């Protein structure tokens, strides 16, 4: 078999669609002819390459273009695309990124300031915290009561002291002031008689 004849049948030989006899004859030629063998191997490589030839997906932009140029109706979006259009795409803008950055910064600062207080409030609102708070309140009230009681006793003592001592001294001093100035000494009983009810005296101030 000549090379030209083999070349004409090479495609069918590779696809194994030749009749059996011709398959054998071509195979015999290929064993003897390195050029045709090389050609057959390259053809086989190309067929394998064709099977692996990539199949590309159509972009949504192209589908949009086609529909707008034909029916004029925009492409109906899937739920995923709608979610992406409403939530993801706005996020991917510089303006949103800037705003989000500022908001995050603000939240971080607020959290740094607020979290310790929140912890305190949370601990106070716990059952143990509430019991401790109540206990502390009762103790405070009791200590305040004790303070008031001791203050009251203090005032009472001072009043008693004032009453017993200071007023006594004052009475003594008043008694001393009641001594006549002119030097006329009168007997004690006469002095008592000379005192009239309307006359000024500090004796009434003295304790009974």
């Amino acid at each position, binding site marked *: 078999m000549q090379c030209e004849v083999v*070349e*004409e*049948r*090479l*495609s*069918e030989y*590779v696809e194994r669609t030749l009749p059996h006899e011709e398959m054998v004859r071509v195979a015999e030629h290929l064993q003897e002819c390195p050029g045709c063998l*090389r*050609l*057959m*191997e*390259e*053809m086989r*490589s*190309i*067929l*394998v*390459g*064709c099977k*692996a*030839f*990539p*199949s*590309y*997906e*159509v*972009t949504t932009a*192209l*589908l949009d*273009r*086609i*529909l707008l*140029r*034909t*029916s*004029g*109706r925009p*492409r*109906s979006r899937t739920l995923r695309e709608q979610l992406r259009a409403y939530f993801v795409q706005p996020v991917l803008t510089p303006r949103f990124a800037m705003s989000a950055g500022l908001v995050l910064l603000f939240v971080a600062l607020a959290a740094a300031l607020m979290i310790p207080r929140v912890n305190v409030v949370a601990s106070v609102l716990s059952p143990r915290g509430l019991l401790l708070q109540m206990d502390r309140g009762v103790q405070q009230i009791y200590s305040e009561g004790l303070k008031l009681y001791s203050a009251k006793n203090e005032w009472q003592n001072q009043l008693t002291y004032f009453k017993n001592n200071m007023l006594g001294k004052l009475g003594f001093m008043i008694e001393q002031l009641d001594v006549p100035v002119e030097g006329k000494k009168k007997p004690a009983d006469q002095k008592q008689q000379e005192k009239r009810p309307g006359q000024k005296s500090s004796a009434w101030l003295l304790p009974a």
Partner: protein
Amino acid sequence: MLPGDEKMVERCLQGDDAAWETVVNSYAKRIYNLTYRYTGRRAEAEDLTQEIFIRVYQNLKSFRSDSGSFQGWIMKVGRNLIIDQYRRTRRFPQAAGTEEMESMNLKDEKLPNPQRGVEQTEASRFLREGLQALSPELKEAIILRDLEGMAYQEIAEFLGIPEGTVKSRINRGRLELAKLLTKRRTQARMQV
């Protein structure tokens, strides 16, 4: 034909935009990949895909369910537009050197030899460039058979040519690609 395609077309003709959207969603990927394989560039493939759907929308009335499937009809409309585009620009620009030359992950279990694995990866990378070097007829046949996975009979009906011609074009296209790949490998070895 996909189930309900005929009803879907009827609904489209009655002005049901939702039905048209379903049609676009169903066939956009296939049409886009077909145009991408012809042009080798994404931007051009997108523009062509858009033009194809505009043409389909404008010519929905001319679809006859008894003359073939809706998918086949859309593919024909697409193919005609691609050919028109080719005639206008004479040839599609080369895809070589574009950012789209991603490496493909090839797995050929029948050929465990690492050397063969490397060669196949190279072949698949080359394929995009190699396709642009073929004549439109051969490229079309290779795309429909090896990339779109259509049967010979189907391709013959689609292109309106005898099945023997389809087989011949596919064989010639594959041979040209194989020769180009061999030449490229030889050049690479010479440079090393």
